[in-house]
């Protein structure tokens, strides 16, 4: 019934470290956004982050820096800027990424990622944010 035993889990070393880590980060009030470094010209990574939150990408993906982005449906997007292939198909270039974001169903029909009906500049902003995840 219980997925985790409360204190047993908490007492295990990993749990203790996790609590310590949260305790430490809890008191670190300053925001800790990813390092700025736009690899997509003209993109606004802050706006991209906001869009990611609004669209609910976090329901399927783990995305560092986005609140509640802990989804386990699609691949985690941490270190996205260093990943090699997107959608298991295309090299991870800004052009490919933007195309994918605008219409994933066109690139891999029937895949689980919905068309978000993004505009070009919106896709660019999101891509900009994702590339900050190094």
């Amino acid at each position, binding site marked *: *019934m*219980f*997925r*985790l*035993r*409360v*204190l*047993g*889990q*908490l007492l295990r070393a990993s749990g203790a470290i*996790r*609590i310590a880590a*949260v*305790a430490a980060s*809890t*008191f670190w*009030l300053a925001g800790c956004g990813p390092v700025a470094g736009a690899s997509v010209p003209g993109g606004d990574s802050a706006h991209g982050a906001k869009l990611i939150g609004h669209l609910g990408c976090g329901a399927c993906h783990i995305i560092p820096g986005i*609140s*509640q982005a*802990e989804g386990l449906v699609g691949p985690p997007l941490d270190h996205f800027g260093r990943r090699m292939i997107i959608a298991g198909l295309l090299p991870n270039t800004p052009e490919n990424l933007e195309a994918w974001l605008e219409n994933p169903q066109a690139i891999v029909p029937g895949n689980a990622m919905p068309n978000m009906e993004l505009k070009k500049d919106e896709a660019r902003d999101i891509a900009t944010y994702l590339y900050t995840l190094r």
Partner: protein
Amino acid sequence: MTFQVERVPHAGTATPSFRQRLEHIWETEPGVAGFFSTVDHKKIGIRYIITAFIFLAAGGIEALILRLQLARPNQNLLAPEQYDQLFSTHGMTMIFLYALPVLSGFSNYLWPLILGARDMAFPRVNALSYWLYVASGIFMYVGFFMGAGPNDGWFNYVPYANRTYNPGLSMDFYSLGMVFLGISTTVGAANFVVTFLRLRAPGMSINRLPVMTWGTLTASAANLLVVPSVSLAFFMLWLDRNFGTHFFDVSKGGQPLLWQHLFWIFGHPWVYALVLPAMGMVSEGLPVFCRRPLVGYSAVVLATLATMTLGFGVWVHHMFATGLPNLAMSFFSGISLIITIPSAVTVFCWTATIWTGRPVITTAFLFFASTIILFVIGGVSGFMTGSVPADWQLNDTYFVVAHIHYVLLGINVFPVCGALYYWFPKMTGRLLDERLGQWNFWTMFVGFNLAFLPMHLTGLLGMPRRIYTYPAGVGWDTLNMITTIGAFILAVGVLLLFINVVTSLIGGALAGANPWDAPTLEWSVPSPPPPYNFAVLPKVASRYPLWESRLQASRGASSVTEGALLDHERETFGVTPLDGEPDIILKMPFDSYAPFVLTVGTTAIFVGLLLHRHLWPLAIVGAVIAAASLLAWLWPERRLGQTVEAAP
């Protein structure tokens, strides 16, 4: 020694050889044997306090983990089920395993000393109530460590507690554990009531009783009347879960609201039982540091009695949102507001004591005086929730969480800390360090208020109770972070207290019999007191036996050096309840294993009931052990004057 049916008690003063003889009669066997058989109220009292503080630490750690989870919105430190078990266990621990037992510990230790007797009325019952308390506490914590701690809050509403929605052993551990603990509370309460009525120094009439004893008396009397309610409710819940009864099962006519009634009929008086003894300790300690008797002894005593009496009639204010008729709600709302008056009387008496006294600012004074402020804050938030329409909004938000913490920390933990600073020298012979004490107080005071004062606002901004996470951007983020920081500061304060206790035990200044120049009987005996408490039983002629010579108004002539020498085995006086005139020489029991064995039997019963599907014979074995030890316990003993003298 031949046994006399009647005797004229000899009066006199204590000589060293007499003291030695008493010591021999009263002392507990050293070592393991003595550990399990002692009935000395002082040893039991200290055990109670230490055990309660261990539970306080456990509950505190649980609270800190909860506060980490809530420090920021949308955190995932705890899964929902973990959070639910932690907050429920935190509540259960603090309310049932810390708050009352710690007060019972102080009362256990202090009552005979402050009343001028050599032990409690039922020393073996005293031992029993302690062992049962420990056993039931361990029982419930075993559940917690098995991942089956309570998970429906301390109030445990049905139907969520029923098997349909709550499979597993969580609720079985909790419901049986509560019945188990209820036995301990009940026998302990009966012991206090009888001790209050009967075991006092000669001359301690009802109007000369130390004010502290009134708090524990009213709490104990209330417990006798309300604990059966919650025990019954939990027993019915256990039957519902395990034997298919339908007390709370809607499909067969059961009534979920019956649970709420039974629970709060108990629950609200219980809250008063958690604070009245602590208020009694403030009434006892604060005047000593103000260098004067308490202003309005009679008023405070009557207020205590009135609070408890009215306290039986306010339980429905926990149920304003259950769709009761307006007339009923108006009535309970009225009583909930009126109950403020006796509390106000007490608060004003304390404040007047400060203003008409000469306060000496010690750590104990700081804790006692801060209690007044914290009580006022906890009291007015209670006043707000007593008003039905306001309660419809305030109830089940963090406003009420803040309220209950102001009540339970403000009028339980803070007075208990004060009491520890005040009576620690009596218990150990050493003073707690004052410098560390001031640090301890200010850390706790600042941490506590930082944690819980903003929490009122969190509540006014609408944060509901018992949610394991909350969304960002609804106005609660900063306040929750402040509360978490405050909680950790408070924890540091409590840690300082523990450090002070340990270091002072080893190297604290020696206290002497009466380091505070206090007026009551416990300060007339050495620190720590000998096993027999009083070599000669003191004679009391006023409320403040040790201050008589210096209070102009007092015409008393108490005597602590000359009095009855009761030394045929263990003896003390029984007195008439009103006048305090001795009417019997009571034979006190010797050390006994019966309470411990009875507890072992009782524990076996409860474990057998818990595992009744697999291990029901264990309950039978436990019942046999319990019955046998009880019969052995009650078997009339010639040494205790319970049988006819065999030969003339």
